């Protein structure tokens, strides 16, 4: 091989091919996840199921107490946050499995554009989260006593859909630790306290209330409620919530990228 052919082989890919590589990686990541029913189905079915049970059937009979009928809007957004946080955090399981199966090592050896693997994982989480979220919205429209306007609903949907990203960043970071069999445990260790202690759908004792601000789920909830203009339940300014979520994304995502570059 002459120097000239070597140099030709090293010429960078045209932009269109780079984009295509990103797109194909994301497409097959989503396809693989949706075909893995054991993984995708719970993420899609559980949020809408427990929303219908707790948010609609059980609390539907209650008048809302001192919070009034607005409580139904609050519960709807809370369960919708659950729908996007779950596929996000549990991205870690996929990462850990692929790491253990040397697949991430193989991808580092391929001339894949940098970041394609991670973008694909986030895209996969967003697609699953988008489906789960849409189901919760449909359930709310059909069965619950929400009073949000279509515009507000659209904002909530869009904010939460994008809100998958910080949770995927957490998931990616979790996936870089431990083995594939331990990954679901790690996920639950982060996910369960995050759901139950952030005050999204169960009342918290005062001692825990001051801690809600440490959970990203609370901030996503606040961001969605704040931007949709649900004043009754906006406790912190949406700018602050957005800043925290951005911080989580940059911190966890950055660490995950760094760790994957070395250990994947």
């Amino acid at each position, binding site marked *: 091989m002459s120097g000239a052919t070597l140099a030709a082989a090293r010429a960078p890919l045209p932009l269109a091919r780079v984009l295509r590589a990103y797109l194909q990686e994301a497409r097959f990541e989503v396809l693989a996840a949706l075909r893995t029913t054991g993984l995708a189905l719970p993420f899609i079915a559980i949020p809408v199921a427990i929303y219908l049970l707790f948010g609609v059937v059980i609390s539907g009979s209650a008048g809302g107490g001192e919070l009034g009928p607005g409580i139904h809007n609050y519960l709807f957004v809370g369960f919708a946050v659950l729908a996007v946080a779950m596929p996000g955090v549990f991205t870690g399981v996929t990462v850990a499995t692929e790491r253990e199966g040397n697949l991430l*090592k193989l991808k*580092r050896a*391929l001339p894949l554009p940098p970041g394609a693997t991670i973008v694909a994982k986030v895209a996969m989480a967003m697609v699953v989260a988008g489906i789960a979220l849409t189901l919760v919205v449909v359930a709310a429209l059909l069965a619950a006593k929400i009073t949000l306007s279509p515009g507000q609903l659209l904002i909530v949907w869009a904010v939460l859909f994008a809100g998958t990203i910080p949770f995927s960043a957490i998931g990616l970071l979790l996936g870089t630790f431990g083995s594939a069999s331990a990954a679901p445990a790690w996920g639950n260790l982060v996910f369960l306290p995050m759901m139950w202690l952030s005050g999204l759908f169960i009342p918290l004792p005062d001692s825990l209330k001051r801690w809600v601000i440490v959970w990203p789920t609370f901030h996503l909830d606040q961001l969605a409620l704040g931007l949709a203009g649900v004043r009754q339940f906006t406790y912190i300014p949406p700018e602050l919530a957005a800043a925290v979520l951005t911080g989580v994304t940059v911190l966890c995502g950055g660490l995950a990228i760094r760790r994957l570059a070395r250990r994947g």
Partner: protein
Amino acid sequence: MNRPTNPDRLHALDAVRAGALLLGIVLHATMSFFFVVPARDVSQGTVPAVAFFVIHTFRMTLFFVIAGFFGRLLLQRRGVRGFVKDRARRVLVPLTAGWVILAPLTIAAVAWGLTRTFPGGDPGGAAAPRGIPLVHLWFLYDLAIFSLLALALRAGVAALDAGGSARAGLDRWLDRVLASYLAPALLAAPTVAVLSRKTDWAAWFGIPTPDIGLMPQLPAMVAYGTAFGLGWLLHRRVDRLDTLARQWPVNLGLAAALTSVCLAIAGLRPDLSAAATTGGIEGGAPMRWAYAAAYALSIWTWTFGLLGAAVRFLSGESAVRRYLSDASYWLYLVHPPIVFGLQVMLMEVPLHWSIKLPAILVVTMALLLSSYHFLVRPTALGELLNGRRYPRRALQDAGRDAGPRRIRALAGAAGGPVDETSDPETVAALVNVTKRYGTTVALDGLHLEVRPGELLAVLGPNGAGKSTAIGLWLGTLQPDEGTALVMGGPPLEAASRLGVGVMMQEVALAPTLTASEHVALTSSCYRDPLSVEEALDLTGTRELARRRYGRLSAGQKRQVQFATAVCGRPRLLFLDEPTVGLDVPAREAMWKAIAKLRNDGCSVVLTTHYLEEAEALADRVVVLARGRIVAEGSVDEMRALVTRKRIRCASSVDVGAMRSWPGVVEATRDADLVNVTASDAETVVRRLLAEDPDLRQLEVQQASLAEAFTEITREAA
């Protein structure tokens, strides 16, 4: 007395020094949550006060012990002149520069906090600076004084005790005291004497911090001077650290108990109103004396306990600890304006301290660490503070040392695109590469090139370093020494890998995707890939196209992986044991495909256990054993390396007797057939024919590569 210093224990001491400095940052961050300087936060707590109390008890003593230890180490290594030069650069320069830049910022932050805390004016005169405010840099000032005193004292002792018998006596006495657990009491005595006599002692705050002027303060000089002196003596006999390492649980237990006593006497939070009159201690002089004793004892039990625990648990090298201890000096020097500024900014935010305190620490550390990483570590500043500078990238040392010149020319281009100096005859190279896993050396100065269009078979027993070599070429592993080059550049550049196809060992592809989807996925990252059909046809996997990967047999999975390896039209193909688990027809089909690729000009690196695979395909064979090349050449050359021949015949000769014939290595009988391995076939055949005139079916064969290979690696072992 000089004994060799165990570097592992030095790592532990380095970690302690860093820990003491980093705890200082925590200490200062707690202040607004129980005290008025730098500000009084709306959320006040007992936990921050107790944390302050405990850290404040030991952290500077611990620091000065380590400073004394490393002070003597420095003097031993560099002599008096080197010692003075180093202390001037690393203590006096930061002190002066820090004082000019950091003190005004720190004082401004504190003044801002106090005006917000006391809007009507400062009630206690707490902010009014007395003398020259050294702020937190006082420790450098005291360190400079101690260093000078140590030099003077050492000169005096050397003059008086020329024979060293007094020093030997001191060493023996110190060993005995350390072993008897009495050392904390002895070391605490001078401090107790000074503190219990100090009438204006704010007892809760322990040793008064000498941050208010250039005039040395007696309590600090005594307490920290003792610590510096002890550190100096510890270095005279480093194995004393092992005594401390054994005692750590006792010392830490005592320390916790003594601190509890102190807190019971002085209160969990400082009594600011009483501080001016009684020093915060009720019960008169006896109680003050008791408190001073308990406090000074707790200083030394904490110090010994933490030192011992560090030697016990933190000996040995750790990259993270190394980085943090390099960073700690800078972090501590510049933290006060940031910590105090954040405390003042947050003082009125209606959040609990348990949220604000961690937030302050996280933000501070993020700012400090990034400033260290980008502004200090790679620059002259880092060289000043830590004695060395870390370059951003270590790529520069690519292609150094030996190795053919053409490889060096190629390696020189490792940082950028290939230029005219690179060698057109090499598509991949490992240049003097060493790779270790812990203490195991996987590759030991390996030098290996791949030429265009050749099929290089890498053979070797398990653990020889075959897969490590492939990993270095693929960029999934990084060499400890030397350089890996692929397609004219470092493997970590995506451009280098654009012409490379890969088949790794033990890879689990996504089970729910079909074979053709896997090929489509992989080919999307290459410039001009084969179509999916072409790739499947080339590798004979067309009938697997629509089947999910997870449902294929092990051999079929390897075939699909082979299809993904070749689908990008690679110029260089790495195949790591490609035919494991394949049946005979599948293996032959793969061989055919590999041969076709090679004939089309693709270079192939193949590792294998199947020697017939190398015999069937390879242009060149390299045998690795224990990370080194033990043989290299064509298949024929490899066979010629060993002279053994196999002889088969139908004969009645006694096999047992044959084994003792000259030239016979091994002889076995299978029914009427005799199998002989011979190092000198001609002599053995002549004797066979002579001994058995009825001998039939004589067959003489060259040994297979398998036998050659076994022999070569055995000789290397």
